């Protein structure tokens, strides 16, 4: 179950041990234990916004949508100055497919307290809704509030990439890497564009950098395999694709890549098996947020 953004503990506030313990349980996936602890806290103070919010995240993780909604909404009402609460509620609505509700929460939040992360989330919402120009507007607002904000710069690049404006996207990712040289996503997206363009040496360099940051990323090995396949290094391509599949066995793209490599190696029966797995996992669509949210998820 993919995690929603964790609760941001109020700056300078040291929460009491029961809350910290509940937070630790949530992070470790011990949702029932987290719930019990939080409910005890709320018995003592039913208007504890942070506890309500965390309980909302717990219920969402347990697929209790109605309870999750109630807790998250109450926490936002009690703490309208907490942009993270609004963002989490918005993402909850997005998972439910209710983009209008998400929009409403985020707009209300920026009206009270314009924050770069809230504009970023609004921008991602626009991007998901296929409105890239409006998305760019939101990311620009985020950067106006925080010019060195890596996330917003990254999302600008992502938006330009979605428009096929690859030169602009590469520039945006370069700007991210100047601020954060080991930014995994900027390396990965740069690699993707360079791979499309056939700039394999540069793509490889970015993928190696991404691999250093996240050695267990299936995506990195998937794209490494594609680079090697393009250069004709079939053994390396096979190794990378196999690794991608091992790291993420239910990822359809990894199976597709492996099937392509096996076919090129003449191992047709195995290629067919991988194609079948590709088709199988392609049809299986977990209720995750689209890939554009991946950076926030992590």
């Amino acid at each position, binding site marked *: 179950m993919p995690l929603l953004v964790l609760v941001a503990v109020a700056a300078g506030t040291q929460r009491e041990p029961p809350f910290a313990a509940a937070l630790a349980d949530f992070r470790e996936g011990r949702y029932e234990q987290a719930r019990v602890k939080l409910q005890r806290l709320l018995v003592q103070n039913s208007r504890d916004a942070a506890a309500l919010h965390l309980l909302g995240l717990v219920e969402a993780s347990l697929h209790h949508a109605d309870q999750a909604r109630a807790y998250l909404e109450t926490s936002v009402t009690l703490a309208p100055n907490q942009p993270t609460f609004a963002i989490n509620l918005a993402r909850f609505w997005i998972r439910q497919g209710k983009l209008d509700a998400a929009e409403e929460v985020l707009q209300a939040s920026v009206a009270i307290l314009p924050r770069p992360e809230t504009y970023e989330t609004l921008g991602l919402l626009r991007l998901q809704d296929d409105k890239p120009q409006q998305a760019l507007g939101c990311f620009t607002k985020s950067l106006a509030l925080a010019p060195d904000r890596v996330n917003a710069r990254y999302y600008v690049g992502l938006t330009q990439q979605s428009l096929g404006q690859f030169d602009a996207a590469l520039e945006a990712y370069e700007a991210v890497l100047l601020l954060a040289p080991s930014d995994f996503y900027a390396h990965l997206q740069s690699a993707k564009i360079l791979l499309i363009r056939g*700039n394999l040496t540069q793509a490889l360099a970015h993928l190696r950098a991404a691999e250093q940051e996240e050695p267990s990323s299936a995506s990195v090995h998937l794209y490494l395999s594609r680079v090697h396949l393009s250069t004709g290094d079939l053994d390396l391509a096979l190794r990378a694709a196999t690794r991608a599949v091992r790291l993420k066995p239910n990822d359809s793209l990894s199976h597709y890549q492996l099937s392509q490599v096996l076919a090129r190696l003449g191992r047709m029966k195995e290629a067919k098996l991988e194609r079948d797995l590709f088709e199988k996992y392609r049809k299986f669509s977990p209720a995750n947020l689209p890939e554009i949210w991946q950076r926030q998820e992590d």
Partner: protein
Amino acid sequence: MTTIWMGFLILLGLKSVPADGERGNPFISVDPSGAGIEFRHFSGSTAVKELIEIMGSGVALLDYDGDGKLDIYFVNGASLPGLTKTDPTQYNRLYHNEGSFRFSDVTAKARVDGSGYGMGVACADYDNDSDTDIYVTQFGSNVLYRNNGNGTFTDVTAKAGVVTGGWSTSAAFIDVDRDGDLDLYVARYVDYHIGKGPYCGEREKGRASYCLPDLFPATHDVLYANNGDGTFRDVTATTGIGSVAGNSLGVSTGDIDSDGWPDIFVANDRTSNFLFHNKGDGTFEEVGVVSGIGYSADGLARAGMGVDIGDFDHDLQPDIVVSNFEGEGLALFKNLGELFFGDVAGEQRLHEATYPYVGFGVGWIDYDNDSWLDLLLVNGHVLDDIEEYKPHIHFAQPGLLFRNRFGRLSQVDSPPGDALASPRVSRGAAFGDLDNDGRLDVVVQHHNGPPEILRNVVQGENRSVLVTLRGTRSNYDAIGARVTATVGGKRQRFEVKSARSYLSHSDPRIHIGLGQTNKIENLVISWPSGREQTVSNLAAGQGYVIQESSRGFKSFPLRTQQVSH
């Protein structure tokens, strides 16, 4: 030594070099009305938004009367929901080429006005009686018009056994078994019923929209084998064509793996593309996905519409271009040999250039006669209200031209006012030399509007040759014949085919750009019958008709010679 028999004289007006490579495209738009063409496409648009309304129709360039000039046949839609042509403005139209870009409407005399909702067209001499017949695909049942040889046609669909049914799109004549007569491949779209589809759009706002094809079952295409007596038999199941189903739109054919047997490529809309590899034993194996051309590199089934096959990089392997939807980019599948392909559209920068557009008609054409196949693509969205959802995407879109220099493609600028620059809602496109001046022209079908005739007026010193092949043991049109031309010591590969682009049929003659070389040193023809024939020293600036023959040879002056063995 072979003699060359020229069936017609090519006018030389061949000072043709593009002005400056990538600045300014060489096409000018000929006013269709001024040319005598009053045709206007009719989609039968309704408030219900039936899916068929957005597909457009095809156009064919064919010499139906054998006078050496390409005539034009436009396919048209019909009224909905009845799917019948209720008004002469909805008829298909055949225009006779009078020369100098003047045409006359001969539809009534020819009796080819169509009946139902027309989609695509394929032309060839299916009965080997030396004249070109016409096959029109439709929604519901198709029509085969047999050319009577006197300016008229007869509807022989039922007798020939090629009615088909369902929703047919593109079609291709192809001699799959190399027995000397042309078989017929018919692509089909989804299983759709007019008036019975689901509601798509925002019902509460009263805004109907066109449904995605995903909502309807895919269907298999159909292959008919020619019995040699004017009739066909359905061999879909026995050949393996019926083993897969897709949302087929574009078709092209060619010997992809150079094993002597013609293969079939099908562009599918949101299902994987098909590559039917001809095994030479009466069966086909579908290898699209394993070959690397089924899906994008990201494993996505794109919305494939138009297709063309051509050797763009002079490695003597046929490569495949496919037009796709906005956000997907054009696909250029480079042939790596052994039935493997790699999409090089990205490194050619075609992917980015075509990203905002919905591509339909597409074709490899050496517009500047420099011997390198250039690429022309016409576009137009399918949603007439797209700008309300995506303000950066437009319903009407410009066409795109890419010049090929030594295997590198780069976009040719089309400033405002240029023919291709005007945003249109384009669909079918056919390529051919309408005025026999050695420069390839284009005819485009625009959705719910008059067509566009793009006359090629490229200037410079480059020259070309037009070759018509005539089979004797092979099918008369020589469809499936492979030609390798040696020009200036370098070899280029061509193939005669009946299907390319989107729903359309192009000039079947082989156009060979020579650059500034003054002759083709050798032309090696691999006929579908298996016969190999070599013709040497074809002078630039000429047209040739080369016949597959086993008797003697004659020698004639270059402008009036025929080649025979």
